[in-house]
């Protein structure tokens, strides 16, 4: 049940990030979660609704993209995707491997925000054309 602390971290990070876009509303928060991250999506979703109340994330959707485990198989000389997390063996040659290349991710990939048309506050970044001088 550490999903609540995870969701609290998400709320803090996103709140901090959207502060650069005054007046913007958060529509969606997208996560990349490795199959080995020991986070349950249902619990995340459940906690998300509660933890985002009265924050800039209130009413936004949480999209959880689960990434399969990928290990490097030495005999095959390539990265291979595992079918689950019950056996760390190459599905092609059956050799065990502990050379993890993907599966422990726990990150906020991106957020989708909605702004009013005339709200052009652009987090202090200079307009692109100024670089072309």
């Amino acid at each position, binding site marked *: 049940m550490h999903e609540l602390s995870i969701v609290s971290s*998400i709320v803090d990070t996103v709140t901090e990030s959207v502060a650069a876009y005054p007046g913007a509303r958060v529509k969606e928060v997208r996560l990349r979660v490795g199959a080995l991250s020991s986070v349950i999506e249902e619990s995340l979703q459940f906690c998300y609704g509660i933890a985002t109340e009265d924050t800039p994330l209130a009413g936004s959707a949480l999209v959880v993209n689960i990434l399969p485990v990928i290990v490097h198989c030495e005999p095959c000389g390539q990265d291979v995707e595992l079918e689950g*997390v019950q056996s760390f063996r190459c599905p092609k040659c059956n050799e065990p491997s502990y050379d993890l290349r993907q599966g422990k991710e726990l990150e906020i990939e991106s957020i989708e925000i909605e702004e009013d048309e005339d709200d052009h506050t652009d987090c202090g970044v200079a307009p692109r054309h100024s670089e072309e001088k």
Partner: protein
Amino acid sequence: MTTRIVELRRGILKKNDELAAGLRNRYTAAGVLVLNLVSSPGTGKTAFLERTLTALKARGARVAALVGDLETDNDARRLASSGAPVRQINTHGICHLDAEMIDKHLEGWELGELDYLFIENVGNLVCPSSYDLGEKIRVALLSVTEGEDKPLKYPTMFNSADAAVITKMDIAEPCGFDRAEALKNINEIRPGIRIFETSAKTGAGMDEWLEYLAEERERRNA
């Protein structure tokens, strides 16, 4: 009304990971080998650690321990009987230890005066796997009473471990413990992991474990 996607690519536990990286640097600079012991409640982490601390002290090693529980200081009092400095961390409902708790409870301890620091995590095979404490070695413990398929049920924890310890081997037989099956399952989840079969009651397997600790300490400090 316009919508836009803002790429963040931020680790959700970034704050903990950064604190843990700082702790890891401190441990390395001090030359202390730090181990994080994780298991279900009731596996026998405290008994195993009690025996380990006493044996290491007898060998002249400088040891200390931090022990996490939701409530009570019972485990700290048990471990302190070994003569080692011990501090209890009460998480008051939180299901895991995090780097901030470790940092706070290390205050006043001179890490350079220690050879080994053991962190006994909260009994839980799920949540502690996500929280790096800056440890050099994560040890997953499993008792013979828990069922040989525990590693398959909690793959994240066993997969993230550097060493595995089977406890209560003295009652393996009456429990009908299938040793081969347990070893196979641990290896299936974490190929090549070092496994110790121990009993804190009889002392079985402890010498091999202590040798491993000494080797790891030497290897990592070299």
